[in-house]
């Protein structure tokens, strides 16, 4: 190593003599998108996971192919807190565009590895800096400039590993997995890891503040993103017709599904037991789903907010003509293009009543990758049971980030195909049936499928007014009876949708209501409130629309209920208030809508403030430091 390039450690505070913080660390990596850092970050995350330490990874990326700032946050936490944490312990600065902001945002006492030309050490004195000549190190590994760029990212993995104690063997294992056993890709990457490890060992001062040590909290667990989990669920749920139109952050759901279906849903003679169509737009995508559902297939599509808007007209047709189909909404920040690569829970109200006229939709809200898997199956069953579009509300954080999970449980229940009359049943009925007759009193009529070989099987499906035998009608009493029956069907759905998950702590007088990925900061915030303030908070996690009876009951049990969600207006809070009547005065809203996942500390602080002042009905939280904004101002 050249002396001139020796790294500098600027230790402003006396080296901490305190015991190291073990397995509780947030690593924040700032790179440029398109530089291949995603593989490196995945390897880093996975090697911590393989050491048995609970870990989560969140990618904060721009809507761009190459050249704009991107960040990846890895949080390792022995207690299993895998929600986003704002405070960074170890920064890796690789991006000249954001280096200053990245460094300025650090907590005093944190660590910062940086690419030598960025000269971060000159920026402040209360952070421990590790200067690394990445270009020189990469130059020693490869001639090709593209390869050098990719390997640079793997070098920082080696540096980080040496500094915090990640075992080399686990990194090699993670690389092997990342590059699917392809030796040609594995070898140079392992060489880059070694380059980083050796450089750090020889040149960088040791630190003893944060350590990763082997534990046993991840054994038997998997790492997967929510979109892939949903895809696997849909496959095991027997989906046969899938349509999609590319839109971030939902595209990877159908792309994963294509990969899995090609592997597991081809017959011995090479035929597909599915049809997947990339549609011309989301209108066509949902139209095909409903057409397929009408003809009896288990069908689905995946999209995000703008696509949901385009599906609005068809959603009304699906509701009124009673057509099955599943629509995944991987929510992102809106309105319009909004922040297409950032997360939100902002489509709740839109989806709840999507379309014109009187509509109400059933929606499932998974909070984890395993619920993505389960609900993918459940949604297909509910669509056929209720003969209506079923929405599944996920978000970018859940859909595109990697999450640790127990392996998914193999589904053993048979498919629920709903009330479909066969040729034989029609014969028994002497051909007497009515498409929209409420025979069972549950609001769910019987249907027949096109192609049913019986002269009385057919009926005419239309979005215009129809009577209970599917005949055209504009009669006032007929229209009213139809939409009233649809409401009855929606009431019936309350018995079928997943119930909320409620966690009560004895004696708590206040409660949280949250859903989806807000679950993670809520659980951590409850822990903070309990351990730091002795304040117990009950928690109800909603998992579906329509609400079930548990909602009113939960609110009745508490003095104040904090509805925490990731949008500006508190959309779920509003739906809850509509449901409650008098009790709605107990509802408080805590809202986080920065495009980044909500963090526990923001929630905790908000609850404490609102418990001080009961007149505070809404608190908007989570304003972020500059380093996570998009410095290049891309729209």
């Amino acid at each position: 190593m050249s002396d001139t390039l020796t790294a500098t450690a600027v230790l402003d505070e006396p080296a901490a003599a305190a015991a190291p913080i073990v397995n509780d660390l947030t690593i924040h990596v700032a790179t440029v998108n398109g530089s291949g850092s995603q593989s490196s970050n995945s390897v880093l995350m996975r090697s911590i996971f393989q050491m048995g330490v609970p870990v989560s990874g969140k990618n904060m990326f721009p809507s761009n192919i190459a050249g704009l700032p991107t960040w990846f946050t890895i949080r390792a936490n022995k207690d299993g807190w895998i929600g986003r944490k704002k405070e960074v312990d170890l920064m890796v600065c690789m991006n000249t565009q954001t280096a200053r902001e990245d460094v300025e945002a650090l907590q005093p006492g944190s660590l910062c590895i940086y690419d030598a030309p960025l000269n971060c050490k000159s920026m402040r004195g209360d952070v421990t800096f590790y200067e690394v000549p990445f270009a020189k190190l990469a130059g020693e590994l490869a001639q090709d400039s593209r390869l050098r760029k990719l390997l640079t990212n793997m070098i920082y993995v080696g540096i980080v590993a040496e500094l915090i104690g990640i075992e080399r063997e686990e990194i090699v294992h993670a690389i092997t997995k990342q590059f699917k056993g392809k030796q040609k890709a594995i070898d140079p990457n392992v060489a880059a890891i070694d380059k980083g490890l050796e450089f750090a060992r020889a040149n960088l001062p040791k630190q003893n503040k944060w350590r990763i040590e082997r534990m046993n909290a991840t054994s038997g667990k998997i790492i997967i993103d929510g979109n892939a989990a949903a895809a696997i669920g849909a496959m095991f749920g027997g989906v046969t017709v899938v349509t999609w139109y590319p839109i971030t952050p939902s595209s990877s759901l159908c792309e994963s599904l294509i990969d899995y279906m090609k592997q597991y849903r081809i017959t011995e003679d090479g035929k597909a037991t599915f049809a997947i169509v990339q549609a011309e737009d989301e209108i066509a995508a949902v139209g095909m789903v409903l057409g397929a559902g009408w003809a009896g297939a288990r069908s689905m599509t995946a999209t995000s907010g703008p696509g949901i808007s385009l599906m609005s007209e068809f959603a009304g047709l699906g509701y009124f003509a009673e057509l099955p189909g599943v629509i995944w909404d991987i929510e992102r920040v809106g309105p319009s293009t909004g922040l297409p690569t950032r997360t939100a829970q902002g489509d709740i109200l839109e989806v709840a009543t999507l379309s014109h006229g009187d509509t109400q939709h059933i929606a499932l809200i998974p909070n984890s990758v395993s619920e993505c898997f389960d609900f993918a199956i459940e949604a297909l069953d509910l669509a056929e049971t209720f003969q209506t579009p079923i929405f599944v509300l996920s978000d970018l954080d859940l859909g595109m980030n990697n999450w640790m999970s127990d392996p998914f449980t193999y589904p053993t229940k048979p498919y629920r195909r709903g009330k479909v009359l066969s040729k034989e049943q029609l014969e028994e009925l002497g051909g007497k049936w009515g498409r929209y007759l409420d025979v069972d009193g549950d609001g769910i009529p019987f249907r027949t499928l096109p192609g049913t070989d019986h002269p009385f099987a057919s009926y005419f499906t239309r979005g215009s007014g129809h009577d209970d035998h599917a005949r055209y009608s504009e009669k006032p009493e007929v229209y009213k009876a139809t939409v009233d029956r649809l409401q009855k069907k929606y009431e019936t759905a309350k018995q079928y949708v997943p119930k909320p998950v409620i966690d009560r702590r004895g004696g708590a007088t206040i409660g949280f209501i949250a859903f989806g990925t807000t679950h993670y900061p809520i659980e951590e915030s409850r822990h903070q409130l309990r351990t730091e303030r002795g304040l117990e908070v009950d928690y109800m996690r909603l998992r579906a629309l329509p609400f079930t009876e548990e909602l009113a009951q939960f609110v009745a049990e508490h003095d104040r209920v904090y509805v925490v969600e990731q949008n500006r207006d508190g959309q779920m809070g509003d739906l809850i208030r509509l449901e409650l009547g008098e009790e709605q005065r107990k509802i408080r809203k805590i809202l986080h809508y920065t495009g980044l996942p909500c963090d526990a500390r923001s929630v905790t602080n908000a609850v404490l403030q609102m418990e001080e002042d009961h007149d505070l009905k809404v608190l908007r939280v989570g304003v972020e430091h500059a380093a996570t904004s998009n410095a290049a101002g891309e729209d």
Partner: protein
Amino acid sequence: MAESTLKIGTEAPKENRLGLKALDYQGGKSTLCAGCGHDAVSNQIVRAFYEMNVKPEFVAKFSGIGCSSKTPAYFLGRSHGFNAVHGRMPAIATGAILANHKLVGIGVSGDGDTASIGLGQFMHMVRRNIPLIYIIENNGVYGLTKGQFSATADEGSKLKTGVINDLPPMDLCALAVELGCGFVARGYAGDPKQMIAILKAAIAHDGLAVIDVISPCVTFNNHEGSTKGYTYSKEHDELLHQIGFVPAYEQIEISYEPGEMREVDLADGSRILLRKLEEDYDPSDPVQAITRLHKSVAEGSMLTGLVYLRPEKKSFMSLLNVVDQPLWSLDEAQTRPPKEALDKIMRELM
């Protein structure tokens, strides 16, 4: 003017080969204006399916929104029907056929439904070659909203209110040829014989059949100055050829002079016979087809016949390589991979 069709075989009997009567192919009573061209098309659809011995239970009818889109209620009452949203029928039909490719799909749309709001879906349906008979009942106006111009209205044509259309018309046949449709025809509601020959060929064709039918609107576009009314159409109808259709089950030998007739074989064994009226027209040549369509627009004539035929083009379902059994009917054993598959996927993610 020459007859548009060739007389082949015998008259249809009182019952078809399935033992069904023409009555079994009827639909509800039409609520369209008396004399509407669309009703004439519906009648030919009834006849074509009856004579082609297609079981009505195996047919699925689709439509968008507009006067034309009401018509599936007026034919094939024993078939399932789906009146979708405006311009989006192709998506519904595509989905239904993906779910059950054994269905014989017939879609009826209009010029407003197809050429304006539904143009995108129309074009992508053509690109995919969805096995479907897609009829555009083309009258140049929006009837159901009381007589506004559509995108197929001819330049210079006049509305009842006196408004002149000064935008060029969209030629849906030329567009379908351009996008590679394997079966493109133009008919005229006032020529039922030609219409039924085209419909029968379309039923036999495996793939998308686009049939643009000039179907006059008696209420809003049948006046002096209209170019899609009965009088104008009758005067300007220009036959590309005489059409004969020989179904697969008919073993009829047709004798003709060399060069007089063109024969096109369809996948199901049936044959289309085209007696040449224009010496050198080759319906398998897309460039010639488009040129000929442009020429007729320039001359102000209404060219009818089988404009373009490429029956060998692969339909979307064969491209998707799906199992023979309709996808909707697959059960757990066929669509839920075994537990070992999930275990393997989980292991890969550990």
